[in-house]
């Protein structure tokens, strides 16, 4: 289990955010476990509390620790993060109030690092600000334990400044990461939606090729059904020595290809459990652009010939294609014609005949989406000559 956990940490770059958050929570749990183990002998020998207080502290820590473990195991990561931060602050308070030694002061920095670890802006603003405030209060009230004899002038101010700078350096880092990742995520989600639209067209063309070849759809091919059935039973038997549920599941899966999901969900004759399964299965259908179709298409694309990588491979902006203004003018003219004359996808009767209207094309070339492809100057060029575009380029 530990081996698998460490492997997951090593491969964290391949895991989705929720998985990484869970890994973070577990790592902090381990860290706090180690710190608590260290705290027990420290509190017995060094910290200046009564025996009753020491026991009370330890009980509170152990209960909190159990709570964090419980939340992590239930996959409730947000409460586990909150409690673990409070736990760390609790440890900082325990040490700083229990001893006048310099090492206790270091715990403020450890607490800040634990909060930084989660990389959550609001948690940082709330808890890290509180820790920095407590740290400053500690510096002001425990000056004797922080000043050497002799020491440099204004050493207390320096302690405060260093703590504040440490706090701000990480705040800047979190703000930068937050902005960067939000922007990247926005681009990523948008790109995925656009890819889905390409794949809707790809599905349509593949279906046309199939119809022309007079071949049955893949899900209707009995050999394919048999293969799926045998593979499923083989895998399931390896995992739990069973395979009995397959028939019902596969029948429902095939049935979903014939009947609309909405009709199934509206039906009173179908049980709630079956409706839930149908909803989950829907993304794996093969008679439309579904998640499964996208996975197959992307995998297949891996084996199609592609031009070698160059740094401008993913540049679609006109300015990145050419910086010569005469070429840009020709390119805009051709771009406009393509948008106005070529098919942009299937129409409402599922015929590959939908073309964009003049208004839609003009919106594309001047609206917010255009910024991804054109510079403000190019957009202005289009606006200034819109009449010419319509007169000479929109005609058949």
């Amino acid at each position, binding site marked *: 289990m530990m081996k698998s956990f460490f492997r997951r940490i090593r*491969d964290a770059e391949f895991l989705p955010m929720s998985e990484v958050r869970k890994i973070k929570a577990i790592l902090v749990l381990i860290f706090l476990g180690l710190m608590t183990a260290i705290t027990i002998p420290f509190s017995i020998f060094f910290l200046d509390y009564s025996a009753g207080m020491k026991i009370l502290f330890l009980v509170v820590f152990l209960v909190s620790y159990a709570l964090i473990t419980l939340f992590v195991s239930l996959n409730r990561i947000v409460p586990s993060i909150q409690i673990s931060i409070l736990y760390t602050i609790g440890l900082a308070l325990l040490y700083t109030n229990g001893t006048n030694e*310099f090492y206790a002061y270091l715990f403020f920095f*450890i607490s800040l690092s634990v909060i*930084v670890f989660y990389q959550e802006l609001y948690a940082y603003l709330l808890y890290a600000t509180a820790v920095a405030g407590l740290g400053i209060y500690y510096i002001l009230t425990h000056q004797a334990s922080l000043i050497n004899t002799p020491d*440099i002038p204004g050493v207390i101010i320096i302690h405060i400044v260093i703590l504040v700078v*440490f706090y701000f350096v990480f705040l800047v880092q979190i703000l930068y990461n937050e902005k960067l990742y939000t922007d990247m995520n926005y681009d990523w989600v948008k790109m995925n939606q656009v890819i889905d639209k390409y794949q809707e067209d*790809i599905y349509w063309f593949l279906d046309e090729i199939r119809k022309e070849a007079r071949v049955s759809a893949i899900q209707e091919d009995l050999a394919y059904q048999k293969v799926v059935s045998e593979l499923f039973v083989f895998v399931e038997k390896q995992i739990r020595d069973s395979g009995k549920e397959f028939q019902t599941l596969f029948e429902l899966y095939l049935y979903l290809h014939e009947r609309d999901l909405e009709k199934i969900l509206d039906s009173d004759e179908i049980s709630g459990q079956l409706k839930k399964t149908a909803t989950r299965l829907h993304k794996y259908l093969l008679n439309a652009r579904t998640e499964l179709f996208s996975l197959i298409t992307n995998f297949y694309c891996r084996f199609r010939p592609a031009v070698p990588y160059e740094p401008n491979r993913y540049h679609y902006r006109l300015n990145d294609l050419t910086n010569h203004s*005469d070429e840009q003018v020709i390119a805009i003219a051709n771009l406009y014609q393509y*948008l106005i004359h070529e098919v942009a996808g299937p129409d409402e009767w599922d015929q590959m005949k939908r073309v964009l209207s003049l208004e839609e094309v003009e919106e594309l070339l001047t609206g917010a*989406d255009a910024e991804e492809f054109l510079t403000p100057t190019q957009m202005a060029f289009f606006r200034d000559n819109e009449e010419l575009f319509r007169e000479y380029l929109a005609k058949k």
Partner: protein
Amino acid sequence: MNRKRSYMFPEIEDYREDLEIQHLRTKNHFVIGLLTVMMIMVFIYMLIADFPLRQTLILMFGFLFVILFNIGNLAYGSENNRFYQLNKYLTTLGVYSLALGILFVFASPAAVIVLFIAYAICAFFQDMRIMFISNLFLLFFAIMIVKGYPEYLFMENPSAENNAGLTLFFIAFILILTITSYIIIKQKQFFYSQIAMSKETEFRNLDLLIDLEKEVTKTAVDTDRYYERTSQFLEAFCRKIGIENLFQEKVSILKKLEKGELTPAMLQNHPQYGKSDWERLEQLRIGGNGKLRKSALKMSHTFNVEVKKREIFSETHFKSFNHQKDSLDIKILAFVLFYAALKRGMPGMPELEEADIRSILTSTDYSYTIDPRVFQIYQKNTDVFASIVDDWLKRRDR
């Protein structure tokens, strides 16, 4: 399973590096900003606290050197990326040297904490090697202070408590900083990989879409008609602004390029154009799989695409066979449907070779899209999987 995995598309690694370089520049700006603020603060303090002028000047010279070196490397970096790479290593060295300088000049426990700030500044680079170097520096300096300069940590008359506390807390601090940096770096790599993966997927899907459209419609973009209209448009445009038509030559070249006519005669007739000019003009073809056509296709498919705020960071956009809410049965079914479809193929998408499927599934990041239990069974029984499919498909063909 234990080997380090590569990416499904080899291009992902290249684009990730490009992204890294792009963002390294911004990170460097932050580092320069932070160092400048620190320099000003240290300078003001040293003047007020009446430190010897020589010490003040030496420290200021150190700060200025690191900052100017950074600015210089940023300038050269736009010409050659290696300067950015060099810069992050030398800046790390510079930042720790400055921290050490402050430590020795101030000779105070307060200055020890400056080492932590040095670590935080270097963490900005979000780089695994920098993290490693930073850890080594921090550990080395911590040991150096404890052993060689105990007075900086109130350890001249050491109590067992302070000794134990400082050692343990230093270790704990370095440990948590290391874990923090490591996970932040991994998270950054995750985002870069996802962006790179989508970019490459889009690029290849556009190629596939263009090829399928050609196959089904049996027609190509009517480039002759395009350039006819473009010529008329440009004539009218030149008339409108009162200049002679300067576009004719380029239009005629592009028209020929659309027909694949980049012949030696063309090269001879246009000696003013070099290799890069021809490459650039090739990109501007609206027919075939030219870049301009891809831009147009992307543009037309971008129409009406709206991203809602709640969709950002939503994992529903991850396409996989391992959705958390799906039962194990559904996960198995999804994977076997996928595997069998690849082996069977379909009109327009021919079947794939077992070796190709296996290499992607078992040695790239693709394995993370599959439930680990299902993946392990596939990995241990690739031959069984292949023979089940081959057996049935042969029976069908008979």
